[in-house]
C-alpha cells in the first residue's frame, strides 16, 4: 500500500517541521505542567500521607494541615476512651524562625512527634536516629532544604526562635512545595521552641483497632468530642490538597498553562494540516473523481494526524525528559506516573485529530468541477 498520508506529510518538510514544533511544544508544556502539578499535589499532604494513623483530630474549622491550631491535650485522653481506638498520640506543628549560616532567618514548620512511639516520625532517614529527638532541642531537617536552611552536618548547631538547636539527623522526601521547610523534633521540644502553651497539642492521631471500620470510629469520635473536628487520614489529606490547589489558585494556574499548551498545539497543527489539505484539494478531488469515497479521503487526513501525533509525542517526551532532568537539578520536583504519560499521548492524538476536523469538512465539500480547472 502506498501511504499518501505519509508521502504528503514528509514531502513538505518545512511544514512538517513547523507542525512538529507545535506538537512538541504542546506536549512539553502539558507534560511538565501536569508533572509539577502532581508533585505539588502529593507534596502538600506529604506528612499526612506518611503517618500510620487512620484518624486526625484537629482544632475546629481548620483549613489545612499547615495551619494547625492548638487545643487542649485533654482531648487525647477522651480519644483513647472511645471504643475502637487502638492507640492515640499527640502531634505538634508550630511555626518558627530558623537561623541560616548566613545569619538570615527562614520561616520553618516544626513537627513534634512522640519519640517513644514514633507516631508521625520521619519515614525516610538519610542520617541519624529519629529517637534522638528526645534529647533537648535536637532536630532533623530535610536534605532537599539545604538551599533554604543551609548545609548543616550532624552535630551542627543553629537557632530556632533564638533558642539553640542541634542537628541530629537528615530526612529525605519530607519536603514541602510552597509551604515552609519541615523540621522534625520531639513533641516536647516544639513546646520549648514555640509559643504554644504547655498542656496543648495541635493534632491527635489515632489508629483504629482491628475489627472496627475507620468511618464508624470516626463517627463515634465526632459525636463524643466537643470543639474539635475529626477526619479520616484520607479526608484530611484531600482537604489539604484541595486548599493548596483550589483556594490558592496555584493548581488552577498550573493547569491553565497545560491548557494553553493544548490550545497552541491545536492551532499550529490545525493550521498546517488545513493549509496542506487546501493546497492539495485538487488532487484529493481527483482521487474522489476516480472513485475514492469520502472515507478514503478521511483516512488519509486521519493518518496524517496520527503520524503527526506519534512523532510529535516522541519528540515532546524526549525534550520533556531533559527539561525534567534540569528541573531536578534545580530542586524542582516532577511526578509523572505512567498513566499520565499514556493520558498525554491520548490528549496529543485527540489534539491532532481535532485539528483535522476542518480539513475533513473541506474534502467533504470538494466541488467536482474543481478538478477540471487548469
Amino acid at each position, binding site marked *: *500500500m*502506498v501511504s*499518501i498520508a505519509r*508521502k*504528503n506529510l*514528509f*514531502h*513538505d518538510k518545512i511544514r512538517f517541521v513547523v507542525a512538529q514544533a507545535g506538537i512538541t511544544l504542546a506536549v512539553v508544556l502539558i507534560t511538565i505542567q501536569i508533572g509539577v502539578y502532581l508533585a505539588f499535589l502529593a507534596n502538600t499532604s506529604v506528612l499526612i500521607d506518611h503517618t500510620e494513623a487512620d484518624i486526625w483530630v484537629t482544632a475546629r474549622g481548620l483549613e489545612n494541615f499547615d495551619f494547625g491550631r492548638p487545643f487542649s491535650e485533654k482531648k487525647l485522653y477522651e480519644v483513647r476512651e472511645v471504643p475502637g481506638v487502638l492507640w492515640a498520640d499527640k502531634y505538634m506543628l508550630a511555626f518558627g524562625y530558623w537561623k541560616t549560616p548566613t545569619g538570615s532567618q527562614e520561616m520553618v514548620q516544626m513537627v513534634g512527634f512522640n519519640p517513644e512511639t514514633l507516631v508521625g516520625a520521619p519515614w525516610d532517614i538519610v542520617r541519624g536516629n529519629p529517637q534522638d529527638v528526645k534529647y533537648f532541642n535536637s532536630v532533623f531537617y530535610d536534605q532537599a532544604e539545604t538551599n533554604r536552611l543551609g548545609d548543616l552536618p550532624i552535630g551542627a548547631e543553629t537557632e530556632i526562635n533564638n533558642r539553640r538547636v542541634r542537628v541530629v539527623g537528615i530526612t529525605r522526601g519530607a519536603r514541602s512545595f510552597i509551604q515552609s521547610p519541615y523540621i522534625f523534633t520531639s513533641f516536647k521540644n516544639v513546646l520549648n521552641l514555640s509559643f504554644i502553651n504547655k498542656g496543648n497539642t495541635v493534632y491527635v492521631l489515632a489508629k483504629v483497632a482491628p475489627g472496627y471500620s475507620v468511618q464508624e470510629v470516626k463517627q463515634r469520635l465526632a459525636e463524643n468530642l466537643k470543639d474539635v473536628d475529626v477526619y479520616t487520614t484520607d479526608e484530611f489529606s484531600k482537604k489539604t490538597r484541595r486548599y493548596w490547589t483550589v483556594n490558592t489558585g496555584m493548581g488552577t494556574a498550573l493547569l491553565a498553562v497545560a491548557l494553553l499548551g493544548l490550545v497552541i498545539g491545536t492551532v499550529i497543527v490545525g493550521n498546517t494540516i488545513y493549509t496542506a489539505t487546501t493546497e*492539495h484539494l*485538487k*488532487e484529493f*478531488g*481527483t*482521487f*474522489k*473523481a*476516480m*472513485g*475514492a*469515497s469520502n472515507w*478514503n479521503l478521511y483516512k488519509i487526513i486521519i493518518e496524517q494526524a496520527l503520524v503527526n501525533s506519534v512523532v510529535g509525542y516522541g519528540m515532546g517526551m524526549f525534550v520533556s525528559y531533559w527539561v525534567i532532568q534540569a528541573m531536578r537539578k534545580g530542586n524542582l520536583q516532577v511526578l509523572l506516573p505512567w498513566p499520565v504519560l499514556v493520558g498525554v499521548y491520548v490528549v496529543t492524538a485527540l489534539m491532532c485529530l481535532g485539528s483535522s476536523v476542518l480539513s475533513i469538512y473541506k474534502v467533504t465539500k470538494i466541488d*467536482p*468541477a474543481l*478538478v*477540471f*480547472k*487548469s
Partner: protein
Amino acid sequence: MACHDAQTVVRLDRVSKTYGSGESAVHAVQDVSLELAPGRFYILMGPSGSGKTTLLMLMGCLLKPTSGSVFLFNEEVSALGEGKLPRVRREKVGFIFQGFNLFPALTALETIEATLNLKGLRGEAAREKARELLTHLRLEKRFHHLPEDLSGGEKQRVAVARALAGDPPIILADEPTGQLDSKSGRLIVEVLRDLAHNEGRLIFMVSHDTRILGLADRILEIDDGRLKDQS
C-alpha cells in the same frame, strides 16, 4: 422506450443541466441525447463556456442532471444515490485532466500504485501492474520521478496510466493536450486513439485543437449547451 443497441456504453437521454436558479440560472447543457459505442474515439468541440466540461461530468457521474437520464452499460446512474456513485466511477470510468492533477509527493509509480490500491489491488500485484501500465506508456525510465521532475508530456502520460488503472471501459479526457506542446499533444491523442482501437475502450475527449481532429472516429460539436447536428 426505444430499443437500444447492446453495444452502447454511454447513453444520454434528453439530459439537461442547469446551474443555479431564477435569474442567475445557467443552462449549461440542454436536452442532449447521445449514444456512444465501445472501441471508438470521440472528440467533443465547442467554444469556451459551451458546456463541454459539464457534459463530461454528467457522463462521469460527477454531476447529476437536472432532467433526463444517464446510462452506463444500461444502468441508470443518474438515478443512483450519492453513496453508490464512487463504486461506479471506480469500476467504469477513468479521467484525464488538462492540469494533470498529480500528487506532488508521489512518484509516477506510487501514483499508479495508490490508484490501484483504491481500486482494490494491493501489495506486489499492484506494484507489478503499475510498472506494466507505465511501461505501456513508455515511462519505464521515469518510475521514481516526482511530477516536478517530469515534462508536461510525461506528466500527462502518467495521468493516462492512472486513468487506465483498474481497467475502466470508459476514459473521459478534458482537454488533455491543453498544456502540452503540439508534439507531445499529438502523442497523447495517438495513445488515446490506440486505447480505443486496440483495447476496445470508449474514449471521449474534449479538445480545441483542430489539427488532431483527423484522428477521431467521430466529432461532436456543442454550442450554448446544445449538441449540433452531427456530421
